[in-house]
């Protein structure tokens, strides 16, 4: 597949601009390959983030032709029909430099939504048997493959509009743990996601579901949290 791509890359911080590079087109080329080519052959000062290159670590998400995507698993052939690519940093996060954003708020919100597993047993206890076909386990399993790439967070209108909103990834993680029968802190978790930045701010626009590279459904997870927190509130188990 000979030819050339016209690639616009975001350069600089918040006040930066797009700069255009010419990159040779190759067979089975990914967007991450394109960015790597620019850094290795055209401008070594280009800053971007990646690690595994195989869709596991969630480090390399960027905005590609206006949509957030995991760049290591996004083939150029799928997104650059006219041999043009515009690659920018993820939206809804502060730009550190070029294509690298500050992910700190994303992970802080994950913590605020009580996204960390709290064990209910010690290592001295017997291992609890969890049936894979148990309904709660199925719900927990549905979103267990989240790789925290930040694509859903960058795609979310509510995150853009409401600074304290936890976002789809953090709330999906909370829903996973709410359904994990081994977890000991569900009351605190439901309280956390029932507050101002929690699940009730979601407008169900479903951009997260549309763009999640793992084909997860954060909108459904958030809807589950809404139902669960409303039930807990009406029973008097949590207060806003």
């Amino acid at each position: 597949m000979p030819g050339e791509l016209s690639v616009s890359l975001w350069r600089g911080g918040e006040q930066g601009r797009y700069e255009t590079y010419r990159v040779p087109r190759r067979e089975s080329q990914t967007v991450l390959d394109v960015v790597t080519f620019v850094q290795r052959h055209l401008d070594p000062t280009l800053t971007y983030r990646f690690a595994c290159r195989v869709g596991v670590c969630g480090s390399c998400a960027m905005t590609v032709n206006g949509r957030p995507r995991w760049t290591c698993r996004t083939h150029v052939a799928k997104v650059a029909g006219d041999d043009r690519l515009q690659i920018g940093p993820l939206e809804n996060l502060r730009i550190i430099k070029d294509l690298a954003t500050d992910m700190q708020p994303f992970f802080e919100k994950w913590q605020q939504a009580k996204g960390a597993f709290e064990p209910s047993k010690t290592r001295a206890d017997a291992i609890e048997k969890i049936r894979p076909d148990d309904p709660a386990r199925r719900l927990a399993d549905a979103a267990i493959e989240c790789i925290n790439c930040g694509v859903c967070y960058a795609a979310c209108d509510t995150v853009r509009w409401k600074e304290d909103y936890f976002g789809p990834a953090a709330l999906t993680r909370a829903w996973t743990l709410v359904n994990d029968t081994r977890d000991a802190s569900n009351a605190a978790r439901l309280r956390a996601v029932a507050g101002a930045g929690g699940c009730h701010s979601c407008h169900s626009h479903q951009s997260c579901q549309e763009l999640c590279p793992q084909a997860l459904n954060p909108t459904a997870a958030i809807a589950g949290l809404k139902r669960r927190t409303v039930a807990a509130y009406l029973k008097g188990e949590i207060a806003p």
Partner: protein
Amino acid sequence: MNVKLYVWQRATAAIMVPLVIIHIALIFYVSRRGLTAADILSRTHGSVLWAAYYGLFVTAASVHAGIGVRNVLLEWSPISERSADTFAFLFGQFLLWTGAYTVYVLVLA
């Protein structure tokens, strides 16, 4: 929006669904029959049923819209949460009392 506001907004929406349908049906009925204001008032005056129907409608709408406006302000304007609370409360009160006055005119005046 926290869970308390969410429950109030959804509950008032659920109350309004049948009320809105009846209200729209009424508008069609009134316009097709060519009823005048005097015709309408003669039917609503002194009616406990119409007072209860529109009283509930006005109350649910003012709560629902107040919460909705608060949400819109918090998401689409730079004002603080406190200011949004104040504005939403005043907006809800405006709807409640203007609506209550309308019900009063329809049924009692």
